[in-house]
């Protein structure tokens, strides 16, 4: 009887793993199979045209804008916040409050961020539906990610580094800039790279704050659409699965590149600390 139960469970384990892998392979396979026919130099670098023959360069540019602007704002704030939490703060009510807020921000679904961005950045601050409004919304979304990964990176810096530096008569600030931040750089960097993935993959919040204008943005105050929003809209509006899948290929390649570089950096980091 127990033998039977064991075999049954073992069978279920194999079956589940097979199912998971099969489904996930199917999704990637499907995206590539459907979309690969459209991929060409003109498709990626060509200007968009509504009749369907155009490229997706405006969406790529918009995506790059959102990534750059959100990171330029979120990275320094996130790193300094983590520095405060790890290096300066005395554990107490204030730190608990900040940690609680950061954790809560992680759990909020992106559509709520979208609502907030639409009322705060778009309407109250009068930015309109724009790349800037979307980027500021994305800044809030990735801030907790950067704070958390930087905190983890700071934790790995041995206490002896700090003591050694301070014993040489440096100030706390000098120790921070010359010793602590450089040695936790790889960890911080992989956190930033992960945020790029989050920004590139985001759709609902951008949909509500950047709008859907399918043209090359004139400035960061123009409404524009990112790759994910484009993929959604062509599916929803015209049912053009091939086009959506072709955009999907570009997205998957970007995510793949991001993941590989994050893995590479953390591997290099581990080797460096193990020496």
């Amino acid at each position: 009887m127990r033998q039977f139960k064991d075999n049954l469970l073992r069978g279920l384990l194999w079956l589940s793993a097979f199912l998971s892998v099969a489904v996930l392979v199917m999704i990637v396979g499907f995206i590539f199979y459907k979309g690969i026919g459209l991929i060409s130099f003109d498709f990626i670098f060509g200007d968009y045209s509504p009749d369907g023959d155009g490229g997706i360069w405006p969406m790529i540019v918009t995506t790059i804008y959102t990534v750059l602007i959100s990171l330029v704002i979120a990275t320094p704030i996130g790193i300094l916040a983590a520095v405060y939490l790890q290096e300066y703060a005395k554990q107490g009510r204030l730190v608990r409050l900040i940690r609680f807020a950061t954790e809560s921000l992680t759990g909020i679904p992106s559509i709520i961020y979208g609502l907030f961005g639409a009322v705060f950045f778009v309407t109250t601050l009068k930015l309109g539906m724009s790349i800037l409004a979307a980027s500021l919304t994305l800044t809030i979304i990735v801030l907790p990610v950067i704070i958390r990964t930087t905190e983890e990176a700071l934790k790995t810096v041995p206490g002896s580094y700090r003591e050694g530096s301070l014993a040489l008569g440096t100030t706390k600030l000098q120790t921070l800039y010359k010793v602590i931040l450089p040695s936790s750089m790889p960890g911080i960097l992989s956190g930033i790279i992960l945020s790029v993935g989050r920004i590139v993959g985001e759709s609902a919040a951008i949909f509500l704050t950047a709008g859907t204008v399918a043209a090359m943005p004139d400035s960061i105050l123009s409404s524009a659409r990112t790759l994910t929003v484009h993929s959604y809209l062509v599916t929803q509006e015209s049912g053009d699965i091939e086009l959506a899948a072709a955009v999907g290929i570009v997205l998957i390649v970007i995510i793949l590149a991001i993941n590989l570089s994050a893995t590479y950096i953390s591997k290099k980091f581990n080797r460096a600390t193990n020496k």
Partner: protein
Amino acid sequence: MSIPTTNKQTVEIGKANKRKYMLEKVSQRLFLICALLSVITLLLIIGFVFYKGAHPFVAEGYSFIDFIFGSDWVPSEDKFGIFPMIVASIFATIGALIIGVPIGLFTAIFLAEIASERLAKIISPAVQLLAGIPSVLYGVFGLAIIVPFLQNTFGLVKGQSLIAVILVLAIMMLPTIVTVAETAIRAVPQTYREGSLALGVSQIGTIFKVIVPAAKSGIMTAIVLGLGRAIGETMAVILVAGNSLIVPTSLTDSVRPLTTNIALEMGYAFGTHQEMLFATGIVLFSFILILNFVLAKISSKGGN
């Protein structure tokens, strides 16, 4: 002659020290402000969304009970009832959990305990990569493959349905659940396994009686994270839900969950209609808080 110089030097060193000291103070303040920004943004988000969402009920005399339990959503006729959407969201989430959690968990166990190291080394990073794929693409896949499949298999007029949403969300949860749960299972100390096996317990018995209970809190985190991804998902769901405003009575009914209601109408809504979308957001928000609370309760109960 030498005394004034020393004084001058002392004064200069004093000045330099003072500047350093000031810089330390100022930068510490700056760091604190950065850290407080997350508190401020959280308060701003809650403040704005709740202010906008509560306005119709507080200032315009709409009934909150009618909003929650009303089943008509006709903004042009001033009717705002989200009961069908609440039901759709709850069913979609529970359905996705019922399918996604066991498969994801079993896959994680398989990768950590059963699969050869070589096989796990190929599959795990691939699954991890899939966790990063934009969720819109899961929706595109759902619309192109799952929806027609359901349509043909069950002879539906429209394949976009509650079951399509459940399947897409379950698939979307898989990579997150597998990745996090696998890490948790691998973190169980080797001695647990050896101890159990030495007592004559079979490998499968060891896995389900010793290792899974030991990794419970990590597994719970995996479920909460997977759930978080599913429950807040919007764009992928719009593509496969069908967006009908009825209370679903069967798995093949077309539905409109809470998230999609916001995204579909936010573009053109204004006035009370827009505020009602914020109110929808509040309901979604509370829904997530309650679910996380329940899951935390379940996991702490299991601990006793």
